[in-house]
């Protein structure tokens, strides 16, 4: 790299630093205009800290916050960060985005709850549940794309495994068997994608689109030909019961949110941690990243590029298969046509927003899950923002992140390109 290049890079990062700072200031201003101006002094917001049905959890008092003071405190944090960013630059972009989104969401909630009561823990719990399929889709994306294979077939994979799960669980009267079949189906379909793009070098997007169209068609075909006519014998599996983890589930706030869920949610959390460790602290992870960044160099060092890609895409598919199982045997116990409703694509957005990083992808899934589950609560609080606009937010945020003006989306260098020896 020449000095000129270095200078250019420095200039670009300076520019980015200033733009990010200005955007943060704007967010602070937005918080003031949107929230503070619509409140009066002396208003209070009450947040419920207990789930009504959580047996055994230690009950703690509700959180009562003075609205205006809390909002000013949160705005101060954002403005302080903006000033810091403009003056010195903040190194950890993930932390910055995390704190600012937290401040924005918190001030929104405080404003929305003025003079009312709102069950915060219930909200957190339902956000985590909504985030589960998104996070699994995002993990599938992370694993494939870290090995440079773009997988936009996640939507189709999840639909097919959702249906496979419910049918096999209903027929065998065993939810675990359904879960196994779902994971198997996910792996198989991802295997087809892998063969098409690695062996036949089909354009990765085209293959993904084809699998999505096929998946939608095949699941709807089976659904209207068989499932709708034989609901009890084919499409009525029941769902996994929530498992309370001893002791941990009794911790206030954390207990009801994290430790009173069904198996799919637990598996998701375990996978997030496991994939993070595997990807960044094991030889397999190093190889995967090498194959995704510079396959030729990896090949020279004796890594089997094709094999790594096959393995990663198929493991990714199995994770997406688990995500598919969530829709049926993990939540409602039956299959409906097109029930994934774009969650696979939101997962893709979460992966980008989380910078191709398991923990990041999980955190963004939580934000997207929050946007998904807040709609219901907003109606209860009587707020008249059309829920459609909240649902748009994840997509718009992803597009903004991709511009690279705020933060930086660094994808694996060889992402999406087939490898030729």
């Amino acid at each position, binding site marked *: 790299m020449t000095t000129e290049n270095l200078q250019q890079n420095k200039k670009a990062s300076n520019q980015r630093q200033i733009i990010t700072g200005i955007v943060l200031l704007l967010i602070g201003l937005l918080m003031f205009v949107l929230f503070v101006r619509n409140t009066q002094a002396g208003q209070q917001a009450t947040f419920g800290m207990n789930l009504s049905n959580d047996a055994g959890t230690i009950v703690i008092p509700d959180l009562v916050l003075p609205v205006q003071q809390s909002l000013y405190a949160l705005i101060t944090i954002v403005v302080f960060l903006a000033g810091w960013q403009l003056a010195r630059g903040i190194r950890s972009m993930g932390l910055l985005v995390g704190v600012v989104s937290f401040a924005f969401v918190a001030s929104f909630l405080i404003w929305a709850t003025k003079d009312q009561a709102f069950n915060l823990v219930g909200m957190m719990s339902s956000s985590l549940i909504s985030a589960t399929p998104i996070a699994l889709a995002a993990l599938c994306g992370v694993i494939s*794309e870290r090995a440079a294979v*773009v997988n*936009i077939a996640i939507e189709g994979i999840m639909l097919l495994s959702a249906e496979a799960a419910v049918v096999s669980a209903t027929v065998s009267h065993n939810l675990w068997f359904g879960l196994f079949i779902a994971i198997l189906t996910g792996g198989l379909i991802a295997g087809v994608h892998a063969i*098409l793009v690695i062996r*036949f070098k*089909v*354009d*990765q*997007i*085209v*293959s993904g*689109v*084809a*699998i*999505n*169209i*096929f*998946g*939608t*068609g*095949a699941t*709807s*075909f089976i659904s*209207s*030909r*068989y499932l709708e006519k034989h609901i009890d014998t084919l499409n009525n599996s029941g769902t996994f019961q929530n498992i309370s983890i001893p002791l941990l589930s009794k911790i206030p706030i954390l207990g009801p949110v994290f430790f009173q869920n069904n198996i799919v949610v637990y598996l998701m959390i375990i996978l997030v941690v496991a994939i993070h460790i595997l990807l960044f602290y094991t030889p397999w992870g190093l190889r995967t990243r090498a194959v995704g960044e510079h396959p030729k160099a990896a090949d020279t060092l004796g890594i089997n590029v094709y094999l790594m890609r096959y393995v990663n895409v198929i493991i990714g598919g199995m994770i997406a298969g688990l995500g598919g199982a969530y829709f049926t045997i993990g939540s409602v116990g039956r299959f409906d046509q097109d029930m994934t409703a*774009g969650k696979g*694509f*939101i997962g*893709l*957005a979460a992966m*980008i927003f989380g910078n191709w990083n398991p923990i990041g992808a999980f955190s963004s899934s939580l934000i997207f899950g929050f946007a998904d589950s807040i709609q219901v609560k907003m109606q209860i609080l009587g707020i008249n923002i*059309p829920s*459609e*606009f909240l*649902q*748009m937010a994840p*997509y*718009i945020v*992803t*597009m903004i992140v*991709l*511009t*690279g*003006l705020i933060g930086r*989306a660094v*994808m694996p260098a*060889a*992402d*999406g*390109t087939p490898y030729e020896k």
Partner: protein
Amino acid sequence: MTDNEVKETTEKKKSEAGEKHGSGLIDNLLVPVLAVLTGLIIGGIVIAISNDASITAWGHFFQDPIAAFKASWDAIATGYGALFSGSLGKPANMIAGIQQYMATGDSKAMLKSFYPITESLVTATPYIFAGLAVALGFKGGLFNIGAEGQFYIGALASAYVGYSIIGMPWFFHLPLAILAGAAAGGVWGMIPGILKAKFGAHEVVNTIMMNYVAFRLSDWLLSGPMKSSGFRPVTPTIEASAELPRFFPDPLRFNWGFPLALAVAALVYWFLFKTTFGFEIRAVGANPDAAKYSGMSVVRNIILIMTLSGALAGLAGAAQVLGTDHWVGQGFSAGYGFDSIALALLGKSNPIGVVLAALLFGVLRSGATSMQSLAGIPIHIISIIQGLVIIFVAAPAIIRGIYHIRIGSADETVLTRGWGK
């Protein structure tokens, strides 16, 4: 890229072009035709497997093997018979209808006999526009997955102009409504174009995100600002002055949209192959670096391609509203935007090929309805066939393997380069 490398690439391109020329028209047609044929054969197998009588007969295979094959054949023949009679009509009925009209002046039977084939053309109309949209993107090296969203936005804009302006003469109103659709779709395509050209954000991700923004926006518009007075979330019916005139009395919906689509296809052909703009687009698509070094503006061309592509997809929505439906409701598109990717691939991104592919899909789609009602085969079988056709077109090696034929592989175009560059 050094001069030497540029020279090398151009020489490689030249030799590839030479090979392509030598392989001739037949090779270019052979893969798509065999892909469709294979798709239909597998579709037939699915029909046979999902047919009760056929399955029962196979259960008695060892007693009566011929009956098993016969039952399967019957199922397939009934299914595809219903498909093609439902989309092309029956010649005998047509002749009888015309004779009756000549003899008595009663046109009812004649119109009824021509209903299926005109309905296929009606279905093909938005397919032609949307297929051209994706094909134009491919020619310019860009993958527009957002045709679905652009279709929606175009349709909504056309519908708005169509119903909100009252009392305008048709020769102003109709062109205005058509232009509104094209402009709205164009804007929806331009945004990812700008993001790609200025920030390097990949158009695939951004067009997917724009799709979902469009879906949510249309949900909101249809349930609020653009909702008609009734209960259902649909727009009011457009004024007669904004309708694309129909050629025949009801129930035939065949209208000026179809000739317009053919004219636009001719225009796109002329634009791509006979104008400087078109040459630049193809140059940018074939090799952006070479185009840049020869003084073409890659940035401008990317924005131009995405805008035109979006405008074409918007026209698809406009034609559907102004010619066929006369109002917009939820779930209005039925996947035209995604199917159009299949069309562009099947038509080898050539406007003539796209028109042919669109006619085929029009026939399949409109025939599927009568296949569902007459033979009890769910309409989704078409999506299964489409997914397979895309895979076969995109991976000619599979077709070569199945039929043991040698087809020149020189015309396999690179559709996307990487995910983020």
